């Protein structure tokens, strides 16, 4: 049996879904749109129930993407998601508001179970609902009361599913809500008004006490002009601290484990192409996916709490006025801040933004925020070209440059948002009618389910693309046209430097010769004329290409090219070699101008295949990641060129 779970937002619909399906659920998208589709199943007495959790909406009038999806499925019996039964959830403590969607659903002649959820909340507020009376008014459906937050009511729902009543075809108003959007707004308003008036009659007959809002004192604090922002800032700082610093421990562990595993595999497999593919291509590729899991899990753990408690909508409330002129949403703050640690969880967290245009702009500018993978690149280049010293005796000059790079990224992101706001067309009218749900403690099972769901999406959807690209990059860096790599290695062995080198140095020299003559090495030389105006040579070109795998690879690639290997985190030997590097005219390659130009390039360029993959997943098309790749590339090129020209 196919069940459609439908209801208003904040009715405990997701809790109910988790309660029924446990972890037997998966997340995808409805075909052709970016609306999330959660589906799952459960069994009772050998009968299997497939259940789809539709997005929460207030009505079936197909204005927003969410409403269009629901309306489309319900009005087309041929649709693969067309249900055998509608499981409608309402919040019993706000029955009057929730009945609007319910009565619209009731118009369809589909068997139906009505769940009065949050029964205890209603009771606590002194609201009494006459269920018997309600059953008389809607005689052809089953009505049950539950409390999904406390895990109560599963039995009752399953019983109700087994004793489904046949519909009598009468409906509430007697007309199905139209899926036609062409109807005049005036007529729609009239229809809605009549429905609402009839609902008020139902409420008068079934509910004894009307709801009185008890405003939480916490709300006054959360939206306070001083404390509200201070509190939000501290929440962000705590989240950021966890993602930025504490995630490093599991990430190092994952990195080390995959390294050891690859090493072990390369020893037990017979040497050859297959061995190299597995130990240098596939295993590091998968490791490059798994490494993001700690950050994603941590971020969604915090976002889960913020959403569950209702605090996130208070954030929108206090940030809306500030973010609006930029075409962003109050909720954009969380994805953008998270992107300072890593754009991947940041882009994924833009899901909390319901307006598509605002969500898209947030996703498109998120990778411009300087992420932690840029830090190794920044520190290397700063140590290389920025002199140590103090301004006014106490301000560290290198520190100012690092701050400047972060600032440049944030400024670039906000200005890009302004431009995108004008360029991206949007069908939705600029209304922001937002519910501020009652504040409540989080339901931990729901928080953990959402963490698991996000990790699964990343590993299985974006992971495929990341592994594929890393295998391609491995191939291009390990193989060259014809016999070029072997010839280069032969030649290096004949040199005097090689003869006098120790074993470790010999290995470094061979890797260096290999990379320089691989396909990527050739590519680096081909693009040299293009990047020369920015002050870069072909060796930097190679590193730009390889660091598309991840920005920090830039440092490793340069080490390979210069045939040096540094112990620990300080690339001192690499810096020495880079300092000695000279251009044809004898001037240093890494001049102040070239160094700063390179930093600026890394601020703007989309040097991250994992971000490309996740943007593809989140926007459901290649159009947006490629657009993003292009405009970030153009920004990087233009501003680096400008920097280089000004400084030389």
């Amino acid at each position, binding site marked *: 049996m196919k069940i459609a779970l439908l209801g208003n937002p904040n009715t405990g619909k997701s809790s109910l879904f988790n309660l029924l399906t446990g972890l037997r659920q998966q997340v995808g998208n409805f075909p052709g749109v970016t609306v999330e589709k959660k589906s799952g199943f459960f069994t009772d007495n050998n009968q299997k129930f497939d259940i789809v959790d539709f997005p929460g909406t*207030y*009505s079936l*009038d197909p*204005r927003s993407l969410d409403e269009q999806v629901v309306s489309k499925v319900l009005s087309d019996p041929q649709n693969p998601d067309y249900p055998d039964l509608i499981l409608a959830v309402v919040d019993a*403590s*706000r029955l*009057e*508001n929730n009945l*609007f*969607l319910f009565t619209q659903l009731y118009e369809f002649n589909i068997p139906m179970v009505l769940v009065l959820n949050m029964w205890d909340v209603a009771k606590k*507020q002194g609201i009494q609902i006459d269920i018997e009376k309600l059953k008389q008014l809607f005689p052809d459906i089953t009505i049950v009361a539950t409390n999904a937050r406390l895990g109560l009511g599963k039995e009752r729902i399953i019983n109700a599913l087994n004793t489904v009543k046949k519909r009598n075809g009468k409906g509430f108003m007697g007309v199905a809500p139209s899926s036609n959007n062409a109807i005049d*707004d*005036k007529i*729609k*308003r009239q229809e*809605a*008004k009549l*429905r*609402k008036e009839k609902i008020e009659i139902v409420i008068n007959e079934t509910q004894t006490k*009307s*709801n*009185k*809002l008890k*405003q939480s004192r916490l*709300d*006054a604090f959360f*939206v*306070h*002009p001083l404390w*509200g*922002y201070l509190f939000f800032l501290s929440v962000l700082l705590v989240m950021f601290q966890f993602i930025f610093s504490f995630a490093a421990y599991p990430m190092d562990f994952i990195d080390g484990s995959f390294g050891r595993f690859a090493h072990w595999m390369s020893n037990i497999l017979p040497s050859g192409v297959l061995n190299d593919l597995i130990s240098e291509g596939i295993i590091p590729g998968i490791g490059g996916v798994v490494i993001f899991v700690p950050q994603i899990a941590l971020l969604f753990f915090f976002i889960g709490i913020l959403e569950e408690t209702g605090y996130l*909508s208070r954030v*929108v*409330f*206090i940030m*809306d*006025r*500030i973010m609006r002129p930029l075409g962003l949403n109050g909720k954009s703050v969380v994805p953008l801040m998270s992107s300072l640690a890593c754009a991947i969880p940041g882009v994924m967290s833009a899901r909390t933004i319901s307006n598509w245009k605002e969500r898209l702009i947030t996703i498109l500018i998120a990778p411009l925020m300087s992420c932690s993978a840029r830090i190794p690149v920044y520190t290397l280049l700063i140590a290389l070209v920025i002199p140590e010293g103090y301004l006014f005796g106490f301000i560290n000059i290198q520190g100012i440059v690092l701050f400047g790079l972060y600032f440049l990224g944030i400024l670039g992101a906000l200005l890009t948002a302004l431009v995108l706001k004008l360029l991206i067309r949007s069908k939705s*009218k600029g*209304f*922001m*009618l*937002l*519910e*501020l*749900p*009652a504040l409540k403690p989080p339901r931990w099972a729901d928080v953990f389910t959402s963490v698991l769901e996000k990790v699964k999406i990343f590993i299985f959807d974006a992971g495929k693309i990341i592994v594929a690209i890393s295998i391609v990059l491995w191939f291009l860096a390990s193989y060259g046209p014809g016999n070029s790599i072997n010839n280069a290695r032969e030649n290096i062995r004949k040199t005097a430097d090689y003869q006098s080198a120790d074993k470790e140095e010999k290995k470094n020299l061979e890797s260096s010769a290999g990379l320089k003559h691989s396909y990527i090495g050739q590519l680096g030389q081909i693009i040299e004329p293009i990047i020369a105006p920015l002050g870069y040579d072909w060796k930097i070109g190679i590193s730009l290409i390889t660091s598309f795998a991840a920005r920090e690879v830039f440092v490793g690639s340069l080490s390979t090219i210069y045939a040096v290997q540094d112990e620990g985190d300080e690339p001192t030997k690499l810096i020495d070699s880079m300092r000695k590097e000279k251009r044809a005219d004898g001037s240093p390659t890494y001049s102040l101008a070239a160094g700063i130009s390179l930093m600026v390039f890394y601020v703007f360029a989309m040097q991250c295949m994992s971000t490309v993959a996740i943007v593809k997943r989140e926007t459901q098309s290649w159009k947006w990641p490629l657009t993003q790749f292009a405009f970030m590339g153009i920004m990087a090129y233009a501003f680096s060129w400008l920097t280089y020209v000004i400084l030389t």
Partner: protein
Amino acid sequence: MQKRLSDCLLGEAIEVLSIEDDFMATKLIEMGMTEHLKTKIVLIAPLGDPIAIDIKGFTLSLRISEAEKILVKKLSQH
């Protein structure tokens, strides 16, 4: 005394008289706000925009540009 919702003070008891925009009015009816609803502003964001009103136990946030389209009258406090 008629005025716009955007001009009301925090906590002032009011009754909704009319809503100018048909599209927005439909959305508001779906979320529970109809003409003759007795309500009050329960929260105002730090920069004065948006504001939040109470709709029978449901807190709805709306922007000032939206509140400008809603005509209300002040009720005498009891």
